[in-house]
């Protein structure tokens, strides 16, 4: 791909190309990486913007109302209008807030949500950093997102944000445990920490040989872990029915109460970027990533996008369907149901892999 991009530039600049190239050849690797980063981030941020639109439209459909329909055809320009409005709003600083940390918190929330995408493979070889310890990087960086929320809650020096940040800390730390343990099973069966290898390992198996690859993906063979990961993913992103962190009816909007304008928008962006990330992770770990579900269709990035859309739709569907969990029930589900379930399932998979019935050879 690098060669064809260079070729395109050569065609674009014609006779000026050799002079230009001699000037920026030394920094070309850097430029190339930045181009790849832009190619990931721009669609991601557009996806975040239109995720908010999709959420309002789909929730509207499920509530039998219309949803946004004023700005642009079918309300399609609504996210742009919202963004502009937030951009031009004043950012209010509470009197007794800690100014440095108060303004750093949105960045702390946003940065991990974006940085994690470095290891996400979009198609075979389509990854910014093909790390051998990709899963570890993912767990490490995504666990940093909690700092944004906790610092926001503390720095605001206000009651509701503080309560929200305490709730979120406990909740996110708890569900990280069950997410990590669910991933242990995936790592065992795919024998790798590299996300590309994990996807490739799902393309092998009896069903894949028969031409129905969808049945040899991890969701079927690791069904309980798939459920644990999916539900923990919803809890980890603080989405309904686990949204006690924001809990509009209880603590107004949790850690974001004191924020306005772009600072508020950053938290919003981070939350939706995390949702899209969890959808991508579920697709890669359990739904075969970019692999085609049937043998006669080619693999490709479109499959990954389709799977992510499916998971994201489910996120919205959950929000429209279930009432909010009570806080002690959230903790009970995480620690007393999911963690033991994972701890039982890990030896089960281990014994299964050692037995003659092993299907992951």
């Amino acid at each position, binding site marked *: 791909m690098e060669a064809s991009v260079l070729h395109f530039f050569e065609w674009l600049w014609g006779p000026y190309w050799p002079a230009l190239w001699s000037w920026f050849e030394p920094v070309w*690797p850097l430029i190339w990486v930045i181009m790849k980063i832009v190619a990931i981030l721009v669609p991601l941020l557009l996806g975040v913007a239109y995720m908010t639109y999709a959420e309002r439209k789909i929730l509207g459909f499920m509530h039998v109302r219309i949803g946004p329909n004023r700005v642009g055809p079918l309300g399609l320009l609504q996210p742009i209008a919202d963004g502009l409005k937030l951009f031009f709003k004043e950012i209010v600083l509470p009197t007794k807030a800690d100014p440095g940390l108060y303004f750093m918190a949105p960045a702390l929330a946003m940065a991990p949500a974006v940085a994690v995408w470095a290891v996400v493979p979009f198609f075979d070889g389509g990854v910014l950093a093909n790390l051998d310890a990709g899963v570890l990087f993912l767990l490490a960086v995504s*666990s940093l997102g909690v700092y944004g929320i906790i610092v926001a809650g503390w720095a605001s020096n206000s009651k509701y944000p503080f309560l929200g940040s305490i709730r979120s800390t406990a909740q996110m730390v708890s569900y990280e445990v069950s997410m990590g343990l669910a991933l242990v099973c995936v790592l065992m069966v795919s024998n790798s920490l590299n996300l590309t290898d994990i996807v490739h390992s799902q393309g092998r198996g009896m069903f894949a040989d028969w031409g129905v690859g969808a049945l040899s993906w991890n969701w079927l063979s690791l069904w309980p872990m798939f459920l644990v990961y999916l539900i923990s993913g919803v809890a980890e992103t603080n989405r309904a029915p686990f949204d006690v962190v924001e809990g509009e009816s209880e603590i107004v909007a949790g850690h974001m109460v004191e924020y306005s304008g772009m600072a508020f928008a950053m938290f919003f962006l981070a939350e939706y970027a995390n949702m899209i990330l969890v959808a991508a992770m579920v697709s890669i770990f359990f739904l075969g990533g970019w692999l085609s579900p049937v043998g006669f269709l080619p693999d490709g990035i479109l499959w990954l996008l389709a799977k992510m859309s499916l998971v994201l739709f489910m996120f919205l569907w959950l929000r429209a369907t279930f009432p909010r969990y009570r806080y002690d029930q959230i903790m009970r589900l995480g620690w007393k149901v999911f963690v033991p379930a994972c701890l039982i399932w890990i030896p089960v998979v281990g014994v299964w892999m050692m037995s003659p019935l092993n299907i992951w050879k």
Partner: protein
Amino acid sequence: MPSIGSAMDLTSIVFYVFAALLIFAALRVITARNPVHAVLYLVLAFFNAGGLWLTLQAEFLAIALVMVYVGAVMVLFLFVIMMLDIDIKRLRQGFWRNMPLAAILGIVMVAEMFLVLSTDYFSLVAFPDSKADAGYSNTKELGRLLFTDYVYPFELASIILLVAIIAAVVLTLRRRKDVKHLDPVQQIAVKHTDRLRVLQMPAEKEGE
């Protein structure tokens, strides 16, 4: 591709940036007045230590440091320190009285560390060149060592940790009698016949 020489320079620049930030953050941990700021500087210090390990090509250790300490331990630290009502004036009261003892302890620690670190074990000669072949997986190598050569110490350490976890849980577990406890299993199993009784009442006639 950059040449080998410029790559070396880049590594050294990265090393000095990480090292400088690490020392700055570590100093701020002990000089910051606000404990929450101190914790956040400690997080920054851990982060830069992880970065230094990355330059040594020990990516597993670096990521594990960030995941365990920054992602979990420090969050809980912050969680506790945030909720403490700390009176800084009162904390600083005994500063000059405790100063001599603290200084002696500090000097002893520095001397000990100097004695350990200046031995041959930590000399430049003892460390092989950290350059690894392409395709060498730090994580895989570490896993292989842990589960073959060092399997008994590894298992022993894990048992000690397990005992510590159980001990911590047992020490803090107490049933409070004054709390109305709701058992979710009972809540789910509730039947409408236990809660609601529908009475049939004959309609009263009008006009009597």
